[in-house]
């Protein structure tokens, strides 16, 4: 029997039994589309979070005051009592480690900022000139904070893009004097749009030298120290150096926490792996359900078509030929189902992408492959198994079944 004839026989069978064809197509398509869309959701969330963390900068250690880990009941309570402040001097001491490339201290506060009559309450970040390199930020206009002794309180400010718009509208901002609290600062630079970073809009900040921020907030303590190591491989040694240095400066007490984005990323990776697998498990339930639907439809259909199988045998078709016919039919049908499902899945992903532009929805290849594999496998299995049983009957037996 010619391949072309096998295919056209299958299409004849599809046309001859439209309800069954539609049911199996829909069932397969739903199963595949569910897997594609659900895993794309999981992956979208993962890449979103990963890229958020990547935007923090590479080879980055973040030092924060206080210990977050509790090492047993007694000492933990003792340690937690009064963590010493992190100071600019602490930050500069970290530079002595050979594994540390750059550091940028950070303190944060909220201060009213005003220009002429307009004023706003915005987060003010105090840091040093290294910040822009460590965080890979870019300038829209002017320059970033000047290099030099970090304890010098220059009255200069760099504005986030949105703050600039709100205070100055279309007027030029560079060189103008703005008021932060009760101090005057000269605008020396405008940041280009930085977008979100861990929930904080970096377009809505004013950045000043760390010493000026200390005066503004009337506090010598730092919020964070950002430490850039020489390379990724230096991370563990750098971390140990940081801890040792701070301990030495804090009378032997280890009262800081050092986190690396690697650790955070790894945790999130684990969470999102779990999420993706959970979602894939849920999706495979829908595949199983559609498999059962396919099985039932096929069982009904083959029992309807047992007489046809008997006839084919009576006309001289051997068993293998009948099996080949039904195999081709099942294969074509589940292939179409998978293609329809993939299309629905792709459309769904595009739709999701439009609804949530910040996320990218791309189903992982393994999920797409597995979905198609399972869908086609189920279709083949349930298409061929009952046909195989029917093809084993003697022609009279098969013919008399109706």
């Amino acid at each position, binding site marked *: *029997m010619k391949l072309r004839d096998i295919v056209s026989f299958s299409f004849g069978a599809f046309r*001859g039994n439209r309800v069954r064809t539609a049911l199996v197509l829909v069932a397969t398509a739903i199963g595949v589309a569910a897997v594609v869309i659900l895993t794309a959701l999981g992956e979208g969330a993962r890449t979103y979070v990963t890229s958020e963390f990547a935007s923090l900068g590479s080879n980055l250690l973040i030092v924060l005051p206080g210990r977050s880990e509790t090492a047993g009941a007694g000492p933990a309570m003792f340690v937690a009592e009064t963590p010493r402040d992190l100071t600019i001097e602490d930050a500069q001491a970290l530079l002595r480690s050979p594994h540390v490339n750059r550091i940028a201290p950070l303190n944060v506060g909220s201060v009213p900022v005003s220009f002429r009559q307009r004023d706003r309450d915005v987060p003010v970040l105090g840091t040093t000139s290294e910040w822009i390199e460590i965080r890979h930020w870019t300038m829209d206009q002017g320059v970033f904070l000047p290099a030099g002794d970090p304890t010098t309180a220059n009255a200069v400010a760099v504005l986030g893009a949105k703050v600039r718009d709100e205070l100055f509208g279309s007027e030029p901002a560079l060189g103008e004097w703005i008021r932060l609290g009760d101090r005057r600062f000269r605008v020396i630079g405008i940041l280009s749009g930085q977008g979100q970073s861990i929930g904080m809009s970096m377009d809505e900040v004013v950045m000043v030298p760390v010493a000026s921020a200390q005066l503004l907030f009337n506090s010598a303590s730092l919020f964070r120290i950002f430490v850039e190591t020489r390379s990724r491989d230096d991370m563990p040694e750098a971390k140990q150096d940081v801890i040792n240095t701070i301990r030495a400066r804090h009378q032997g007490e280890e009262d800081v926490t050092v986190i690396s984005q690697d650790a955070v990323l790894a945790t999130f990776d684990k969470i999102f792996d779990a999420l993706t697998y959970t979602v894939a498990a849920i999706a495979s339930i829908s595949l199983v359900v559609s498999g059962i639907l396919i099985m039932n439809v096929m069982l009904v259909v083959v029992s309807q078509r047992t007489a*046809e199988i008997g006839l084919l045998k009576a*006309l*001289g078709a*051997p068993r293998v*030929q009948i099996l080949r016919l039904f195999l081709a039919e099942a294969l074509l049908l589940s292939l179409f189902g998978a293609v329809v499902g993939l299309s629905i899945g792709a459309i769904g992903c595009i739709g999701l992408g439009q609804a949530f532009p910040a996320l990218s929805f791309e189903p992982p290849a393994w999920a797409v492959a597995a979905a198609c594999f399972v869908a086609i496998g189920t279709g083949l299995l349930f298409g061929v198994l009952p046909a195989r049983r029917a093809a084993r009957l003697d*022609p009279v037996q098969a013919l008399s079944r109706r």
Partner: protein
Amino acid sequence: MIELTRIERNFKVGDQWVHALRGVDLNIARGEYVSIMGPSGSGKSTLLHIVGLLDRPDAGQYRLDGKDVTTLDEVEQARVRREKIGFVFQFFHLIPRLTAAENVELPLILAGLEPEERKPRVDRVLHAVGLEDRAHHRPDQLSGGQRQRVAIARATIMEPAVLLADEPTGNLDRASGTEVIGVIESLVERGIAVVVVTHDPFVGDRARRQIRMEDGLIVSDTSSTAAR
């Protein structure tokens, strides 16, 4: 051509054995025109199924063209069915989604012939049964007699040595039944052996050789030169 020796066929119904054939001996030569009559349940269909290799005997030997066909494997049996035997059923057994021409073409497709070889043969057999103008009608658009003629066209397209017909007129009125018998007899004229199982004496009496079955055995076997 067909040599049956002590063919037996038993069915188990519940816990009882039904002896449908109790050792039938039958020889049919090339080109013979045979009718098989007898009361209901006498084993006529069962016998025809065995001759057509649609069923297997429980005992006895079946030789076709001198070769024992009961011991052939499944693929070889299918081949014999395809090449040597045409079968016509009481209930036509046409595939409803296919047109008359497509139904007739089916054995050629299964045999793996090229489309350009198939077309003229389909046209020829449809013409032979007088249905060339119904080629593209589906079975539900045809009368019973027309359907049976399509079935005969399908059974003869492989040019078998023997046509087996199980009550080919059983579902037809007299007029279409006569048409169908006419078509069958034109095959006899072309030298194809025909075995017709029937309840209708009008049909059965037309055959040159008339076999009567009762209770799983052949009880009479008469050849009349006077027939037709």
